[in-house]
């Protein structure tokens, strides 16, 4: 019984924080928009008992999902988000891996300080950090001033309000999620394995390729998912740093919800986004499980 209780806690957690909100969104995605509070119909009236429930159920349909197929805007936005999330993940990996590698190779007494430096930015609000990038990247911003005073460029670069700024914002924001799992994988790496590889005739580069990288694989996979999944649905970064041409599903969702006041279609967009993300999430879970088994 005690054991059952222990197991049920995470499941209750999942139920309360994932399944229930999902069912609410799913329910709204099957209803129709209306000029009322809340702005959709039918709403579930439990006071009428079973009759109320069946009346509510019969008012639901899949219309909003078929609507999503009639306009290529949604499709393009999903693809564009997918592209931005994928490239951001690769960029974060390219930047994050050397950092994690350097940290794991640093002398023991430095490590807490280095770790602190990675975590420290989190103590400032996410919104303020993204706003700070506006000040850095704008036409009259710090970056342009620096480059111009150094004589590297003569005209200010247009970075803010472009996709480049979105990539910078996403990579910056999610970099710690990439660095920390890779660091924790590399930290456990047994130095003697590398020595053995070199004794057996590997160059340092091949040893890195054949030994370090495979052992860091789990960390790389975990880090990539932690960057990819939130980047896919990102709204704040594209709306603050991106231009009007930055098409992302998060922005489309906002338009449906706020401009069209169409909660049902907005919910349908969200449900589809979730289905798209479930694939990597399931892969991620599998990977985690494998890792846990390997650790035993």
């Amino acid at each position: 019984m005690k054991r059952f209780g222990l197991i049920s806690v995470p499941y209750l957690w999942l139920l309360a924080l994932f399944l229930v909100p999902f069912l609410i969104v799913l329910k709204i995605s099957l209803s129709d928009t209306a000029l009322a509070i809340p702005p959709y119909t039918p709403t579930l009236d439990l006071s009428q008992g079973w009759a109320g429930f069946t009346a509510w159920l019969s008012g639901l349909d899949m219309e909003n999902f078929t609507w999503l197929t009639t306009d290529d805007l949604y499709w393009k936005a999903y693809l564009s988000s997918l592209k931005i999330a994928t490239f951001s993940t690769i960029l974060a990996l390219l930047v994050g891996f050397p950092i994690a590698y350097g940290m794991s190779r640093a002398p023991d007494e430095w490590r807490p300080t280095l770790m602190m430096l990675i975590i420290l930015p989190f103590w400032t609000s996410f919104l303020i950090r993204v706003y700070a990038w506006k000040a850095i990247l704008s036409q009259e911003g710090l970056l342009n001033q620096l480059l111009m005073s150094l004589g590297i460029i003569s005209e200010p670069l247009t970075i803010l309000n472009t996709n480049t700024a979105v990539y910078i914002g996403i990579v910056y924001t999610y970099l710690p999620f990439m660095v920390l799992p890779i660091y924790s994988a590399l930290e456990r790496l047994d130095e003697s394995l590398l020595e053995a590889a070199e004794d057996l005739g590997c160059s340092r580069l091949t040893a890195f390729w054949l030994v370090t990288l495979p052992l860091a694989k789990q960390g790389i996979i975990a880090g990539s998912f932690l960057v990819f999944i939130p980047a896919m649905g990102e709204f704040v970064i594209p709306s603050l740093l991106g231009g009007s041409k930055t098409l992302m599903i998060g922005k489309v969702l906002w338009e449906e919800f706020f401009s069209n006041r169409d909660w049902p279609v907005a919910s349908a967009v969200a449900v589809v986004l979730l289905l798209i993300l479930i694939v990597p999430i399931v892969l991620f879970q599998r990977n985690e499980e494998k890792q846990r088994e390997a650790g035993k």
Partner: protein
Amino acid sequence: MKKSWLLLSAAFVMGATAATADEVRVYNWSDYIDEELLTKFEEETGIDLIYDVFDSNEVLETKMLAGGSGYDVVVPSGTFLQRQIVAGAFQPLDLGKLPNHGNMWDVIAERTAAYDPGNAYSINYMWGTTGAGVNVGKVKEVLGDDAPIDSLALIMDPANMEKLAACGVHILDAPAEIIPAALAYLGENPDSHDPDVIAKAEPVLSAIAPYVQKFHSSEYINALANGDICVAVGWSGDVLQARDRAAEADNGVEIAYNAFKEGSLMWFDQMAIPADAPNPEAAHTFLNFIMDEHNMAAASNYVYYANGNEASQAHLEEDVIGDPAIYPTEEALGTLYTTTPYPAKVQRVVTRLWTKIKSGT
């Protein structure tokens, strides 16, 4: 924008120190009041005021339609107000609790009655026009001394926009105001609800969109004042605030506001009390405070918007009541148009068109 953040943080501090239950929560547009009035209200009434700001009608409307916003006073624009009244979002005003109601200006009340029949649910806070704010020096440098700064051609003609793009153009991210402007430019009825007519706005706006640096509804105040951009299609008082900030900073930037001679949108921001307001009593006290002629005049003198309060006009500064950009002449009033809310289906067409214009998809 900076000011809004200050206000917001001030609101949080006030919220945190609120000791008594007697408080009123007001949700108003950003950069839209003289902050001294907020302190004055608290001192006079002993009611704690929590003041939050927004910069788009859509955000406010979503809060209203979700219900339980927690606000006692909100400030939607006319068309949005009309739709929200239909949805049942507001409670009728109790005129018995609003002795200052007699100060209101019938000229404006007649027009707002189109959105709120009999003005039963709302009072006019401010009204204004949607026109062009220009950095006079820069625009003349680019387009020559005869630049059409009071014409829709300034922003709707791609030839002009191509040249202006280099010095920066912002346009309001408000389809319900910019699409009517494009229709006015074409000589169509700006308030058309016919999807075929609305569709005519798309090629006009798509042709100029590549030259627009940003579609945004509040950043242009600072951008104009700092000289970062040279043209903004924006709201009259916001542009005039930018003009004053530039003058204060003494940075050589000269800003001018003009309504479009082909016709500009005239809009009304209305104060109303949500149906589920936690403290309607205090909300009425706040509305009555705002309708006081001295307070309303102080607000207009500060934000450079005209108000719907006739009695306040005696206390307005000359550069407010005497400025035709704020209080248009009788003749100019004739060229202004108003719009009515789009039905849900047409709204969808408008939003989709707007996305297409902005993103090219």
